[in-house]
């Protein structure tokens, strides 16, 4: 069963719900940010994109104090799968569930467009259905996606192979031009050491249907469904 957390200001909660419910016919429920407990029935918790608390002060700075986040932390410690997309990734960083921080995009502007990302890691529940070094076209939409981590953290992320997606060219080269926001080492998505928490800036839920012209995002959801054993809704 999938759970999607709604923070005041979340926008992509409805989009994730639509993809899981209508496209993949999965059991999925919303969780209000004031909930203090996460029910055992949930196998995957999604922190959706949007502007929680208006992104005021810093993106995710206030949402991380929502009551539900303590429950999410416990859920993740017990091996539960937590996927933070865009604003959700920023909340995971502010909550310290993933290392590093997000800075303003290098040319300071909000960017909404399709980008190419290279899959660097396929041994985690989120990218099982992908092939190693596969390039996916997934849209981004953010003003603070310029990932930063100090040299030690960066070194440990690389050594522990915690980098899941890097911005790349169409055929997988990691270049300066293919980096839309200045993120260090073209990082677009990372996971914790255990691999059950993933934070990614691109929006897979925005490219999971042919009718809107791009289906590359399906692989992320297909991987998750494969892992938790597809329990179709009644």
């Amino acid at each position, binding site marked *: 069963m999938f759970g999607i957390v709604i923070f*005041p200001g979340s926008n992509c909660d409805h989009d994730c719900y639509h993809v899981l419910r209508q496209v993949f016919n999965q059991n999925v429920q919303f969780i209000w940010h004031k909930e203090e407990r996460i029910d055992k029935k949930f196998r995957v918790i999604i922190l959706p994109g949007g502007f929680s608390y*208006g992104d005021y002060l810093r993106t995710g700075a206030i949402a991380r104090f929502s009551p539900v986040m303590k429950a999410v932390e416990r859920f993740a410690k017990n091996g539960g799968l937590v996927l933070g997309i865009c604003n959700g990734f920023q909340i995971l960083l502010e909550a310290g569930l993933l290392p590093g921080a997000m800075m303003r995009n290098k040319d300071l502007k*909000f960017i*909404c467009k399709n980008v190419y990302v290279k899959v660097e890691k396929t041994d985690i529940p989120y990218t099982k259905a992908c092939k190693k070094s596969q390039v996916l076209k997934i849209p981004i939409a953010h003003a603070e996606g310029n990932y930063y981590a100090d040299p030690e953290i960066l070194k440990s992320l690389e050594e522990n192979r915690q980098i899941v997606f890097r911005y790349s060219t169409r055929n997988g080269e990691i270049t300066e031009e293919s980096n839309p926001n200045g993120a260090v080492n073209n990082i677009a998505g990372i996971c914790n050491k255990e691999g059950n928490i993933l934070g990614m800036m691109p929006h897979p839920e925005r490219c999971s249907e042919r009718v*809107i012209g791009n289906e590359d995002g399906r692989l992320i959801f297909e991987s998750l469904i494969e892992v938790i054993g597809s329990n179709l809704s009644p």
Partner: protein
Amino acid sequence: MKDIQITKELIEAHGLTEEEYERIIKILGREPSYTELGIFTVMWSEHCSYKSSKVHLRRFPTDAPWVIQGPGENAGVIDIGDGLAAVFKMESHNHPSFIEPYQGAATGVGGILRDIFTMGARPIASLNSLRFGLLDKPKHKYLFSGVVSGIAGYGNCIGVPTVGGEIYFNDTYNGNILVNVFNLGIAKKDKIFKGKAAGIDNPVIYVGSKTGRDGIHGASLLASHEFDEKSEEMRPTVQVGDPFTEKLLLEACLELMDKDLIVGIQDMGAAGLTSSSSEMASRGGTGIEIELSLIPTREEGMTPYELMLSESQERMLIVAKKGKEKGVEEIFKKWDLEAVVIGRVRDDGILRVKDKGIVVAEIPAKALAEESPVYNRTIKRPDSQNELQSLELSKLQLPKNYNDVLLKLLGSPNIASKEWVFEQYDHMVRTNTAVLPGSDAAVIRVKGTDKALAIKVDCNSRYCYLDPFLGGALAVAESARNIVCSGGRPLAITDCLNFGNPEKPEVMWQFSEAVDGISEACMRLKIPVVSGNVSFYNETKDQRIYPTPVIGMVGIIDNIEQAMTQWFKRKGDIIVLIGDNGDDLGGSEYLYIFHELERGMPPSLDLNKEINIQRLCLQAIKEGIIISSHDCSEGGLAVALAECCISGSEPIGAEIEL
């Protein structure tokens, strides 16, 4: 507090004429109080009362079998089948955006969104139509980037995709930029809410942000006066938008409307509490009594005048069912928003405003909201019009190198790709954007059905300057072409009519002609007008804008698989020109760039041929004959062909036999 003495200067400072002040005395049967004077002023301003445009707007065709709600409510409503309705409207925020571009544009987006969700619809797509002076001057660049980031800042935060629009640059907008915003929402056909105060003794509830001195004499009065030197210090405290609070207000209101708790709801737009209370009472044929001391404020010592005229953003007025106050308050508490009962619906048809029990205003609501003065202002065709429309093509030197001409045209800001702009807008949130910005019309999927909506804003103001009648008709025809090229069947339009000072006969001539042109095209193409907005006084002492009647059109695509894009797809496909290619160079971009001329007659328009061409194109799309379709507009055939080659993901060539 001693009531302020009404003097001749005070009346003038409020922009009221002698006759208008006499009319107030006749309605009240006495001199107005200072607060009442303020209330009448904003309600009878050009922006709120349409006093100079009403007589002309009546000529618009407004009905068709699919129209559920025409002009007169917060937004227009049309039936799109499957038990659903499309709710849409356009608004202008021109003057506030000239003063503070970011906040002016941001609060424009906030205002149009509230007009949509107040009708019970979930906003699903926004467009905008922008006009600036030429980009060679720092001030114009500052205004341009400020407006774009304001629209992005507000729209992205609230999670409503901005999926397209149009931007033009011309000297005529140096002193008066135009910021028109369009929004469309989807509602259940049988769950449309109206801005009506019904049910005697029902509670009147104020919801949303606290009240401050924002925009006192803001949108309503600013938009009713020309800019002059005085406008620098006439600047009210600028209205600041809070998109996060608006998102909470949106979700709270939609949650509210799902439960059977309220009778009427209206956004506090221009003229804030005054317009919402009086319009709701007037539409309901009832009265409203409110107590000002109950209003949540964020500044100390606000006077009744300031409370009634404040244009603080993100606020709504609700008439709930008696006994359901608790239910309303609980929903707003969940979303951390104010929700305070500030009054009752009365049966005396009076807007009665009290402050700590003392009556500070007592005005018949109907007289205030619907019986503003109506002017049939004098009309005079400018003597220079004939001269303007004359153009001897033979006198113009033919270009030596046509490649240079095409490249320069494609590089002109009016034609060049607007990717730099729409990449700052989140145009994909809500996962309904089937055709991304950059094609003819934006195509938005309607979830739960096979349908999609094609939406477009369009106007060539140079054509309207040269011939307002033909320019108005062309704006409708071109919008319809764009919808049809995207596979859609045009259903209805909203509009934003931007003009100069109505007290000048030439401006009223431009306005009346444009209205006739739009009406003619709408009648012949069977596309009714269901909502709209008028913005006058877009004029400074030495410069008046070209007449800019922007059309916002909505069409339906019965099966989303038939949605069409403008770019060529495959080698070997045949290119077909439908309609004939006359030597219509009057008012063309070519003439403007290469000969610095803005003269001649706009392209001819044969509405019979237009109907047939559009029908043919739509039929051919339905039968799968057409792979891509694009309309010829600015830059003519050459630019249209170039756009078909380069706007797709893979550039592709084409060979043409003239």
